[in-house]
């Protein structure tokens, strides 16, 4: 089982460029999430999805868009990258919506915006 797979693992962008991070899970989980992790800030929720075709804003959604066209995939897009979006991005999925389901994380995608 691959679990949660993120691509790419590393990316360097110039300010204003766009890109898409792909997250794929093979556990048939309904719920998927995108977090960013910055030093001293902890993991912050960007967007999440409670099922195929649905998305919702998290704590820090500005500058990002997401899509969940297929249950197993959750895409995070940056339309016009800014240096403030330099971060490590983690995708996660969970089975339970009841509040106690553990999150399964990918290995992270390190993004640098110059």
């Amino acid at each position, binding site marked *: 089982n691959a679990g949660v797979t993120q691509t790419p693992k590393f990316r360097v962008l110039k300010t204003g460029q766009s890109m898409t991070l792909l997250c794929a899970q093979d556990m048939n989980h309904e719920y998927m999430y995108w977090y960013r992790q910055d030093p001293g800030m902890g993991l912050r929720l960007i967007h999440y999805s409670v099922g195929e075709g649905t998305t919702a804003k998290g704590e820090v959604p500005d500058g990002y868009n997401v899509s969940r066209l297929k249950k197993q995939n959750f895409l995070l897009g940056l339309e016009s990258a800014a240096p403030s979006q330099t971060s490590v991005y983690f995708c*996660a999925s969970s089975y339970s919506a009841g509040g106690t389901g553990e*999150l399964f994380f*990918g290995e992270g995608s390190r993004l640098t915006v110059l």
Partner: protein
Amino acid sequence: SQKIEQNSEALNIQEGKTATLTCNYTNYSPAYLQWYRQDPGRGPVFLLLIRENEKEKRKERLKVTFDTTLKQSLFHITASQPADSATYLCAPGRNTGFQKLVFGTGTRLLVSP
């Protein structure tokens, strides 16, 4: 706004000792609390969950307590080993119909031989 606090300074202990990590929260009333382990360059991995009506939870060498009066959770690793060296994240959550965890910044544990 809600605040989750974990010691930002690394905790250094010797192998065989018990490591105790603290998670404090304010302006928040979680129904449960999860603990995760994160190794450098890797994603967090779930370790334990404790609910508000549980005082203590154990799993092998791990023990978690949850004190809703003190608004605090303690995470213990007994008989610590160098392989336990990692960053440990706490994540309180509420049952809002959708799982919404709030992560602490994590505490780095270093276990020396």
